[in-house]
């Protein structure tokens, strides 16, 4: 299975492939492109990845989550150019009940952020561009992309 995609994520397809009659609790997380970051107006963004490693890390994370809770997990992460409001990441965790579904879903998104080698370049309304560094220090914006 491929976890990265350059195409818009089909959430219903993802949901359909995870759910089944015995899995009565389904948690879904969608991360979408926000219009502001650190007080600046974002107009679009671009995701890139160390694709081979990102696929391997996603596969490991899904296996690990399905081993820790009795759930079935599906996920997709977008790469390339995204517009405001588009779904950047979609996670579906289906289990017998809500508790394992919510726990597994929370684990998935937190660990994706921590482990999967994906980078985000934000394009701002003032014409500047910056690589996003969630660890703190805001990068100096470069103005070479109008």
């Amino acid at each position, binding site marked *: 299975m491929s976890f990265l995609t350059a195409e818009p994520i089909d959430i219903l397809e993802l949901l359909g492939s995870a759910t089944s009659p015995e899995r009565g609790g389904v948690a879904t997380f969608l*991360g979408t492109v926000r219009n502001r970051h650190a007080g600046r107006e974002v107009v679009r963004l671009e*995701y*890139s*990845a*160390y694709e*081979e*490693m*990102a696929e*391997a*890390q996603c596969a490991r994370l899904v296996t690990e989550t399905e081993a820790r809770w009795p759930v079935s997990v599906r996920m997709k*992460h977008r790469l390339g150019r995204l517009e405001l409001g588009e779904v*950047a*990441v979609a996670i579906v965790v289906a289990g017998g009940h809500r508790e394992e579904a919510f726990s597994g879903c929370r684990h998935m*998104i937190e660990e*994706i*952020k*921590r*482990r*999967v*080698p*994906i*980078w*985000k*370049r934000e394009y701002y309304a003032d014409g500047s561009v910056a*690589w*996003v*560094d*969630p*660890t703190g220090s805001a*990068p100096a914006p470069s103005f070479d992309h109008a």
Partner: protein
Amino acid sequence: MSTAAPPSVTVRVLLFASYAEHLGSDALGLTVAAPATVASVLEAVRKMPGGDRVPPRPLLARNLAHIGLDGTVESGDEIAILPPLAGG
């Protein structure tokens, strides 16, 4: 007197996002003295032009798995230097 070359390790180094911009390249071959660790590879990269903008303790990977600075390195390994992750 020995004519053998000192033992060395040749790896492929991958750079991404801001680090690829700093170094002006996204992949390079690098030879360091054996026995080598990820720290030896990182040190060599940080001495290259633009390498001073790579922090001393970045996220690192060896052959698609996260690894620390003290991880050992063998010839043929692929070492990736990863800027702060921003997926999700």
